[in-house]
Structure formats: C-alpha cells, structure tokens
C-alpha cells in the first residue's frame, strides 16, 4: 500500500497522550502511529476531541501527559500544515486563491524576503495540481466549500509540508466535492506525505482512507476501515444510532 519512500519521509507516533481543554480532560491515553504515505481519517462525534488532538499534534495545545513525536518534521520550516475549521478563518479578509497558496511560502521565505519567480511558479503548479488554475484569481469567498479546501491543500503543498492536518474538512462540502477532495488527498499521500482528516459525519468515503482512527475522548479503534467499523466500535462512537449505521453498511464497508 505504501509507495516508495518520500525523500523526507515523516513518521508520527503518539504515546499515552492526554490533553486538557477548557479545564476538562478532552483526550485520555491516546496512542497510535502513522507511517509516511498514509491517508488517515479521524472520525468521531462532535466533542470527541478531534480538534483537540489536531491542536496537540500541531503544538497549539500543551500535552498534559504522554508524548507526541513527529520524526523528521520541523514545524518551524513549515513541514506541518494545518487546515483549520471553517469558523476560525477570517473570511472577511479579501484574498484570492493565489494569495492564499502564496501564504504557504511564508516560512520558506523567512522574514523580510519577498517571493521570487520560483515561488510564483510553485504556486501556479500547485493551483494547477488541485484543479483550481481557472479559479486562481477568485476571492476565497467566491469559491465553494470543496474548492476552498483544495486551496488549503495547495497551500500545504507550496509550504512543502510532509504532514497535513485537515480539521472538519467535509463541513460545508457537498458529496461530489468530498469525493474530489479525497482524490486530491490520495495523490498527496502517494508522494509519501501523512494526511490526517477529521470529520464528524461518517460518510461512505470512510472506506477510501488507508487508516481510520475512531475517537471518542479515547481511541475506540484504529486500523484499516474494513476492520474498525464493527457494531461495537460504532456504539462506542455514536451510541445505538451508530450500531444501526454499521448494520446498514453505511459505516464505510460498502467500498
């Protein structure tokens, strides 16, 4: 399943990680490993601690106990790209798709340097790659939910990130566009990058991930999609409703 190793293959491992959020223990004893070239879906209901997990990995929240290890990932040089939830982006700020993708060059440029020809070429190439070349001059507010997510993926590519974290990536994205987004992420994964995508609604796309982490304040299950979606795990995640989903085969087993 894993393709040839990426030149700077990253690896991520979490050991007994506990994280507090708003005075409550939002995550308890979370342990899992992710190898280079893995597309991992992080699923769980609202309030399951998916964002907390991402914030802890990204270094935005302190880890109370345990350890997050990112092998060969230097956050300062942009090796870790974070695509935030819709709500934490300032949509009032008028930037085009091209402007946003150029933001990925910030950490490579350092302080006072301005982007050069190479940076602009890379931005163009990444926009083309995610299929948004025709929309490069569109304002972010003029793009659909799925297109916005693809702009953020292009930004992660110009940032030369080896780890991508996409928080609630499917919210406000219709089914067809979700499929398109996953396809783009699969090509990104094929280069050896690690992609973690959090979503609260279990779509039939869950089967397209290499690994699925089922999270509800602790790890309920972690593994390939056709192994993790058992009735027992679904009940831990979503209660009785989850069991019905699993029995109906909507929990990712269809593919």
């Amino acid at each position: 399943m894993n393709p040839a190793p990426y030149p700077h293959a990253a690896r991520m491992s979490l050991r007994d990680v506990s994280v507090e959020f708003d005075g409550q223990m939002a995550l308890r004893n979370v342990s899992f490993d992710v190898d280079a070239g893995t597309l991992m879906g992080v699923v769980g209901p609202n309030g399951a601690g998916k964002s907390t997990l991402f914030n802890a990995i990204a270094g935005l929240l302190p880890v109370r106990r345990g350890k997050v290890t990112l092998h060969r990932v230097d956050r300062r040089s942009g090796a870790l790209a974070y695509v935030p939830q819709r709500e934490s982006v300032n949509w009032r700020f008028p930037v085009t798709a091209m402007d946003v993708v150029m933001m990925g060059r910030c950490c490579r440029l350092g302080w006072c340097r301005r982007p050069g020809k190479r940076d602009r070429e890379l931005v163009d190439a990444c926009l083309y790659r995610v299929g948004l070349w025709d929309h490069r001059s569109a304002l972010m507010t003029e793009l659909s939910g799925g297109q916005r997510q693809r702009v953020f993926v292009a930004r992660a590519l110009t940032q030369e990130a080896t780890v991508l974290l996409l928080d609630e990536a499917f919210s406000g994205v219709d089914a067809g566009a979700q499929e398109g987004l996953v396809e783009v992420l699969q090509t990104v994964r094929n280069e050896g990058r690690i992609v973690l995508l959090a979503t609260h609604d279990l779509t039939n796309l869950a089967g397209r991930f290499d690994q699925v982490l089922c999270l509800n304040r602790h790890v309920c299950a972690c593994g390939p999609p056709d192994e993790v979606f058992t009735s027992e795990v679904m009940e831990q995640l979503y209660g009785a409703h989850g069991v019905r989903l699993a029995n109906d085969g909507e929990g990712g087993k269809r593919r």
Partner: protein
Amino acid sequence: MIEFFVAPLQYGFMVRALIGSVLVGVMCPLVGAYVVTRNLAFMGDALAHAVLPGMVLGFIVGINPAIAAVPTGVAVAVLVRIVSRRAGFSTDTSIGILFAAMFALGLAMLSLSTTIRVDMEDLLLGQLLAISPTDIYVSLGITTVVILGLFALHHWLLFASFDPVGSQVVGARANIVDYVLLVMLALVIVIGIQAAGVILVMAMLVTPAATAYLLVRRFVSMMMAAAAIGTAAAVTGLYISYHFNLPPGPAMTLVASGIFALAISFRRRVPA
C-alpha cells in the same frame, strides 16, 4: 480655481498642514485596511485615547508630544495582548480596561500639572494648522518605518490576518507579526492625532479603508484605494477648512464620511 488651491500655500503653516494631511491621508488608511478587515476598530480607538498620558508627559518634560506618544502607544498595544492572554478576558474587555485607565491617567496628569497649559480641545480635535516642523519630521520618520514594515511583512500579515490558527502552527512568527501590526497601528495613530485629534483620528483610520472595502476586490488594491481616498479626504478637508473657516479635523471627517456614503450606493461588495 487655481487661486483656490494656491492662495493658502503662501502661508508656511498651510504648507506644513498640507504635508501633514497627506501623510495622515496615506498612512492611517494603509494600516486601516487591516483594522477594518480584522475588526480592530475598538483597538484603534482605545490606542488613540491611551496615548494621552504620553503626550501630557511630553508637554511636562518639554519634548515633542508626538515623540512621547510613540512609546506609550506601543506599550499599550503590547499590554492589551498580554492582559487578554494572561487574564483570559476577551480582547474587547482588556481594551476597555486599559483604554479608560490610560485616558484617566492622562487627564489626572493634566490637571495636577501646574506648569503646562494645554488646551484640551486641541488634544481632542487635533491642531493641524499649528503643526510644527518637528511634528512633520516625526510623522515622516513614522511613515518610513511603517511603510518598510508593511512591505517587508506583507505575506506574513496576510497569512496571520486570514488564517490566524494556520499561521500559528507554522511558527511563533505569526504571534510576532500580530504585535508588529499593533505597534504600526499605534504609530500611525500618533500621526493621525496631530491632524485630527484623539477622537476624529478614527475617521482617517476606519472610514477610507471601509470605503475601499466596498469598492475593490483584493486586499492589496484595497490598501491602495484606501490611501487614495484618505488623501483625497484629508486634502479636500484642509482646503474646506481654510476657505470656510472650519476646524480641519471635522472637515476631513465629513469629506471622508461623504465619500463613504457615496460608495455605499455604488458598492460592489456586501461586507461578509
């Protein structure tokens, strides 16, 4: 018609006032573009009031009040961030506390001091027509620093303004960029206070940038349009004040507000 523009310039104070109004008209809206798109208007208003103790101190020890206002503004800008982070209050609340405290400190210093006689109205409404050569040099110095800052940090400023969380992940730089923006805000407010005073500096900071937001698409064009509108409003206001014997601050404000009202009728964008 030419007489209308040239006649006032036979006076030295009018030439200085014209230079001052161009600097205010360009600089306040350039930084104001960030103020409008990042909801920093209250912060700007607070900074304008909070530099009062610095200016009063300047009068007392006999240095140019604009020079004394610079460190005060910078200190308050940094304090607001620290208070809101440490005490866990919203930025609004922290601004409210510091804003009132600093303004009160300035008023107390003003009434306790027996050596200075400053007209409160001058502080509140600005004294563009009495602007000194030193004031102009201070404004030119600030202009150079802020333009260099805006240019050098442009992409970081865009990143931190559009996606605060994503930019923080990439490094602590995003945090520093936010501080630098607040410092630049404090600096242009010092230029603005000289011309329009503590209260009406808001008109130069917010109104031209808000007008530009309605008219153009991209952020960079918005900065340019805001600077053009700000300059037009400031210079027109100055001439109106000369010919119709009005104080310049209110005249500039009214022109800027008039342009804004026109823009609302012809806008391309509905604010998000």
